């Protein structure tokens, strides 16, 4: 760690991991509810469990991005963080707001929550992934403004690198796009149209910039490859991400009531969305192959390479599978979407945050470069447990999605939704088992933080 103030990232990462555990616990509950509909009913109904599962994912990734940025920006700028105190204050604000929101979801019915949080004044609730109460959304905006101010001041007074510029651009974009969650027109088509500006332009737009910057940072640190080479890769990747991703939003506009030309625009541009992800794979492997030194933190390099591969598979390949409008016509909203969503989020964003944590945590905990060999081996076990089980979750859901598309939407006598759900039950059971293995992987991951031993050297 070069600067004292970088250590504000630590509480952010700890909170991120804590919320990650919550997300997975709810995921396991949710997976069981697919096959045992009344499991934990009425305490935790399916819709609430789903809301908590997806919202926790978003919130913990945001904690992870913030922690990563607080670590990365001072180091790249070669100066202390503008205000570590503000960073800590915002941490508590965000954590308390997030926790209260989850408590709200679990303790009162959603409609009551909307009422007591004053949703009537500015209605923004009730839309998938943006379920949080309006006041929580306002809180997020305040936290984001303080966060951007703090990092912006740090960025402006120090050295400006491509990595820090791309990261700042991504974070500003993230905040700006979130503002569309306040726009809630009565017209359902318009509502959905702009809703995607938050949802799609986050994960297939500005978050890719954040991911590229974080990956580049870890690769510079662990491989010792020239900054110029890494920066050129980063430029190309973000250019491709934006060229394909922005108009690629069109693949969500196929069936919501927008003009027909979106069928063409959405298909063509999103068909190319795998390109930046494939470039990320090449990037990670090329840099590791060209490495000038063997960094003792081997597990961080493993996460970096894993991100490259899994992001390409999950976001690139699994996304492409159902992005062309003639195919999407039958697969839309089936378990194929769930399969893609799981592997894409894990491969791209979960893994890149865990990669940053893996690289920075040992430094923030006072090691010279890396954890002990034993600790790294345990973390590598968790890498494989989580990654392989996620591959299986994805495969089982893909199988479920294909059968579902066929039985429910194709053939001479399509079957009703619930009949099909019963027929694909076996896949849900297998997915649940894979989900439990994922949970075990996560426990092993946390255990790795407490494994002691002599620090690893090359």
């Amino acid at each position: 760690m070069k600067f004292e103030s970088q250590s504000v990232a630590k509480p952010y990462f700890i909170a991120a991991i804590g919320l990650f555990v919550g997300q997975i616990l709810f995921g396991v509950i949710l997976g069981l509810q697919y096959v045992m509909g009344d499991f934990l009913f009425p305490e935790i109904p399916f819709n609430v469990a789903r809301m908590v599962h997806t919202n926790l994912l978003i919130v913990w990734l945001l904690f992870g991005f913030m922690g990563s940025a607080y670590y990365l920006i001072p180091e790249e700028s070669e100066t202390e963080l503008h205000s570590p105190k503000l960073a800590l204050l915002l941490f508590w604000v965000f954590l308390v707001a997030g926790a209260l929101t989850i408590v709200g979801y679990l303790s009162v019915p959603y409609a009551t929550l909307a009422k007591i949080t004053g949703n009537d004044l500015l209605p923004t609730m009730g839309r998938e992934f943006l379920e949080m109460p309006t006041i929580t959304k306002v809180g997020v905006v305040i936290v984001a403004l303080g966060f951007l101010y703090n990092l912006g001041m740090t960025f402006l007074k120090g050295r400006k690198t491509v990595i820090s510029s791309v990261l700042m651009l991504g974070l500003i974009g993230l905040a700006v796009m979130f503002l569309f969650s306040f726009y809630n027109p009565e017209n359902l088509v318009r509502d959905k149209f702009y809703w995607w500006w938050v949802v799609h332009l986050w994960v297939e737009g500005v978050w890719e910039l954040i991911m590229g910057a974080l990956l580049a940072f870890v690769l510079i640190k662990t491989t010792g490859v020239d900054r110029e080479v890494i920066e050129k890769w980063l430029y190309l990747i973000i250019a491709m991400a934006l060229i394909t991703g922005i108009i690629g939003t069109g693949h969500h506009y196929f069936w919501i009531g927008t003009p027909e030309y979106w069928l063409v625009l959405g298909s063509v541009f999103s068909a190319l969305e795998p390109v930046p992800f494939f470039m990320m794979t090449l990037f990670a492997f090329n840099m590791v192959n060209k490495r000038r030194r063997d960094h003792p933190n081997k597990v961080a390099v493993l996460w970096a390479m894993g991100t490259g591969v899994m992001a390409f598979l999950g976001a690139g390949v699994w996304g492409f599978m159902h992005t062309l409008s003639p195919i999407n016509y039958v697969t839309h909203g089936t378990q194929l979407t769930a399969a893609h969503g799981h592997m894409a989020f894990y491969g791209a964003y979960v893994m890149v945050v865990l990669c940053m944590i893996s690289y920075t945590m040992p430094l923030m905990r006072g090691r010279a470069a890396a954890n002990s060999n034993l600790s790294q081996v345990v973390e590598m076990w968790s890498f494989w447990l989580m990654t392989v089980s996620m591959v299986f979750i994805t495969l089982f859901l893909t199988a479920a999605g294909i059968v579902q598309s066929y039985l429910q939407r194709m053939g001479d006598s399509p079957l009703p939704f619930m009949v099909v759900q019963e027929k694909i039950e076996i896949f849900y059971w297998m997915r649940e088992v894979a989900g439990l293995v994922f949970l075990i992987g996560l426990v092993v991951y946390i255990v790795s933080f407490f494994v002691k031993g002599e620090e690893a050297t090359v």
Partner: protein
Amino acid sequence: MPNTSSVAAENPMTKLPGDLAMWVIILAELSVFAILFLVFAVQFSLNEELFKQGQALLDTRAGLIITLALLSASYFVAQAVAFFERNQPKYFALFLLAACASALVYVVVKLAEYNHLVEAGFGLSGNKFFTYYFLITGFHLLHVLLGMGILIFVLFKRRHIGLHGLNTAASYWHMVDLVWLVLFPILYLL
């Protein structure tokens, strides 16, 4: 093999002019256009009657003027690069401006064409043919505008970017021109 290296140096095709990064972008751009042309071709074969009627409404003269304007612009850009290499900044600037002026002819003619079609009731959602016509040509128009922006940027920053940067910009411009040479026959003529 004593002569190989000098032969390689003389052959302009052995090394890509400009930055490799630009060539990656060019490859990506060409892929997008290729996919658009492919989709257009498939739709053409599925709706032959409709597409032929649509094509009959297009003004081939406008397409021809645009083709000439873009070819001239490419010639001017190539000349500008040559003058830059010979260290004649005045001619360099003159030819780069000429290239922008030619490109502007394209923009004006294209917009006039759009205006004419929309007034006649064939907008973006007019029918399937016109949806593709506007999407593909509109996408190309955006590239011409970006290309002009790049040329103007190069004009102002010529001292900083050097021959390498100029070649990079010129490569992009030639790609824009090349795409039109494929686009024109596919949309207007065939």
